């Protein structure tokens, strides 16, 4: 049985690119879900079992850091691996997300290989 991944980004283009990268990467992923902001992401988290979340930082309604904080404060979600996707390569933004529990980040622009290389070690640590 594979894993479920949630992509959170207000850009449908980025969501589609990441989805395609995941699907072409031959990873153990059964389902790829999408949300346009943190609020939509939380709705999906309440409905489905999610194993990994890839989230943009700058989004309307609820940004990625707020989503991360919310997930880490709630029992059903606090152990879900969260990867930040961001154009903000500033060390302080990355450190802030790491301190709040993000397991890593992917900087835009990215290649499909970079998506694969970030996800594979995370999936290997997940319980089956």
């Amino acid at each position: 049985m594979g894993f479920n991944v949630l992509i959170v980004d207000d850009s449908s283009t980025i969501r589609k690119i990441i989805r395609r990268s995941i699907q072409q990467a031959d990873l153990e992923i059964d389902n790829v879900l999408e949300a346009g902001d943190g609020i939509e992401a939380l709705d999906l988290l309440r409905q489905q079992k999610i194993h990994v979340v890839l989230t943009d930082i700058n989004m309307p309604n609820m940004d990625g850091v707020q989503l991360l904080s919310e997930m880490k404060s709630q029992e059903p979600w606090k152990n879900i691996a969260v990867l930040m996707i961001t154009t903000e390569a500033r060390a302080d933004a990355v450190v802030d997300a790491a301190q709040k529990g993000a397991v890593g980040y992917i900087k835009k622009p990215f290649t499909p290989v970079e998506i694969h290389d970030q996800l594979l070690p995370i999936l290997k640590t997940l319980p089956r």
Partner: protein
Amino acid sequence: MHDQVIEAIESVTLDVFARMIGVDVAKEAECTAGRTDQPPAVRVVCAFNLTGAVTGTAKVYYSLPLAEWMTSQMLQMKEPLPCEQVLDASGEIANMIVGGVKHTLERLIGPMQIGTPAVAILGADTPYEPVAKGSTVAFRCRETVFDVSISFQPALA
């Protein structure tokens, strides 16, 4: 400072196009204001406000055919594509370019923030309005040229 801005625009734009679209683009020209030799054409414009240590404006102009082609390449979908998708993809590429340039220049200028881009399609009868007294780099991609422009107020020394 103009040289550093030009260098940042060039290196970031080449990187973004190579990684996200898988295409090499080439620097065509650079100037301190927008190019004035622009023929009338339908264009996609992505405009940003910069704030923080300095204030400024950034604009990225693509021809509409280039924006449509970029979108089809990124999504691996055939044209024609929905207008909203083309605008979203164009804005995302521009956001990566301006974000990357901002990150590079922050080491020289100080922390800056980028506003949400305004992305629109401009008709051929709409005047081409580059940034005033800034740094503009024109790039060639396929058979067309697109511009990345940044200006700061006041101008950087």
